[in-house]
């Protein structure tokens, strides 16, 4: 069963000649990890921002649990969480205060909020540091806090742009493990965007390769490797981008 269905989603910014996202279509199943990869400026962030309801599509549609992105953005948004690349957190709040504030925007009642926060505390792994002001956190700590925030509400789909950017190897491994576990155990779906091909190869069930706003190839990592006769995803990426540029 698909959690997200994206159908011909396009975005053209004013005063720009080309589409930032051009007729993008893909779907994400329940508990599936779908990764969007592509060169800088290919349209990954534009697609992700549309699916996070931050910007509106020029044309096309997306459905989340049956709710249309353009017709019921409020319902759509309830089922999605978004972790932007290089996102920050409110420096004047403590870690726990941040989780409580963000959780309160999703929770229906106090009990649900408490369960969100407990979950966030456990996932973040920050322990007593959660009682400190975020202003004193390292980049890695902030990223862990934001990741915990993104999944603590148990969304249908968690959209993560460069989920492990700024994290050291050990922290990055922990996060990848956490994403994998949530997708398997909690049936949480993920839409990831990353430039780290090793990470994508480890995490993604399926990959969509986006170039110049268009999805030029998609499938499992194995399928893409076979299609481009490559040993790893980095080679797939290079070949696919070059092929698209030649065309």
């Amino acid at each position, binding site marked *: 069963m698909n959690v997200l269905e994206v159908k011909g989603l396009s975005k053209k*910014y*004013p005063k720009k000649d080309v589409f930032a996202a051009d007729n993008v279509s893909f779907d994400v199943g329940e508990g599936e990890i779908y990764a969007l990869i592509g060169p800088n400026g290919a349209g990954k962030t534009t697609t992700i*921002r549309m699916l*996070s*309801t*931050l*910007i*509106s599509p020029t044309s096309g549609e997306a459905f989340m649990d049956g709710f249309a992105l353009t017709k019921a953005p*409020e319902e759509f*948004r*309830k089922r*999605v*969480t*978004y*972790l*932007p690349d*290089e*996102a*920050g*957190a*409110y*420096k004047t709040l403590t870690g726990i205060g941040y989780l409580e504030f*963000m959780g309160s*925007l*999703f929770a229906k009642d106090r009990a649900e909020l408490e369960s969100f926060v407990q979950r966030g505390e456990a996932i973040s792994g920050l322990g007593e540091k959660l009682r400190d002001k975020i202003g004193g956190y390292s980049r890695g700590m902030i990223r862990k806090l*934001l990741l915990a*925030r993104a999944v603590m509400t148990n969304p249908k789909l968690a959209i993560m742009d460069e989920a492990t950017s700024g994290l050291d190897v050990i922290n990055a491994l922990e996060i990848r493990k956490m994403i994998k576990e949530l997708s398997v155990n909690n049936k949480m779906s993920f839409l990831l965007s990353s430039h780290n091909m090793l990470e994508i190869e480890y995490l993604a069930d399926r990959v969509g390769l986006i170039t110049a706003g268009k999805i030029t190839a998609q499938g499992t990592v194995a399928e893409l490797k076979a299609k481009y006769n490559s040993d790893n995803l980095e080679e797939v990426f290079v070949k696919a981008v070059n092929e698209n540029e030649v065309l």
Partner: protein
Amino acid sequence: MKFSNLFKKELSGLLTRQVIVSMIMTMVLFIFLGQIVGQAMNGVTDSIASSKLSIANLDDSAFTADILARMTEGGSTLNMVKLPESITPESYPAELEKLGIKSLIIIPEGFGNSVINDGKSGEITVITEMSIGGVFTSLDSLSTADAVNTINAASKDEILLKSYGVSEEVLKKLDAGASTVNYTTLDGKVAKINTASLSAVMMMQNMIAPIAVFFLLTMASQMIMTAISTEKIDKTLETLLSTPVSRLSVLMSKMAAAVVAAILNAITMGIGMVFYIGGIAGGAMNAAMSSSSISPEQVSSADLSALTEQVMSVPQALSALGITLSVGEYLLFGLQLILSLAIGLAAALLLGAMATDAKSQASLMLPVVMASMLPFFVTLMADVNTMPVMFKIIMYAIPFTNAYMAMPNLMSGNFLIFWVGAAYQALFLAGTLYAAVRMFMSDKLFTTTFGDTENKKKSLFAKK
């Protein structure tokens, strides 16, 4: 070479386009301000320099004639006027208007003989027309006060008095000089009170409102702008707006919080400023309050001198001159304040949404600060309503001017200007709010930026 490249890099970082624009805007502001204040100053200094001292001399004694002659010799230009015999305080405003003068000194009949024979000065009446406006509009009465002082000094001058054969016995009995009965007129109304003291009190009252308006406007605008731009700069806005809350809720919560914080700030700053101004204007204020705090009944029972007898209290005088605000008028002032505050917030919101970093945020705040500061200083120093039409239009085109002028306009009964201003404010607010909400609700919040000119800049270090 290395130093020059370092220097160029530092200078280009400091002298950005925004900084240069802000420098030019500041310069233009002060030039404009200088023009207006200069004009107000010129008007006052010209009127003081060229004005004749209007005196109605009802005393036919040689002594009084001598004093007036000495004043002329001292450089004063006297404008001797005749008053109708039936004149009463109620007809003072009409008489001043008929004579085309702003102040008048009346020397009573028997003034000279009373000094020479009994050592007692008579009662000099001083009538002054008051104007509600900036600091420089209340300086007209200075020359009149000087003239009264001169008459007083002459009435106690022993050499002069001896030349009129005043005995040593009478000289010992000399009183403190002529007592003065002050009348203040405004728009055909009259009140028995000293104009300078009343002006000082009025100035105090009229300064509190603009100071409160200024702090409220700039602080609320600064806060809402910071609230929006910091979210963008710290990259928390995308996360916040992807949660299941409407953008309008986010927007309104920010505006409401900014208003509350600004009100608290304005109250604390306002209290500080009131004490600061109170310290400056303390002398005049105290004089007015000490004479005004005695009711007519208290005066007679305490058998005080004629100096304070039947002098009106400041509230009585304000009421007699029709320059008190009713509850309804205070509500109108509140309405004007809310309109201005809303415009400031909407404009700051619109501009703050375009900020990409702290530098651009400071530059974007500049138009709001300038639009608050210019009318603040101008209205503090001059009366916008008496300016030439062009200046008047320019000043009232700045929406915040209406808030600064609301109090004087309501006091002076300039309801047409008030309501036209309020209508203009409402239209301006609708336009700004529409643009701000539209921006916040649309993609432009994430796509519109200010000061992103890096890609257009030529490299500083490129070889020519």
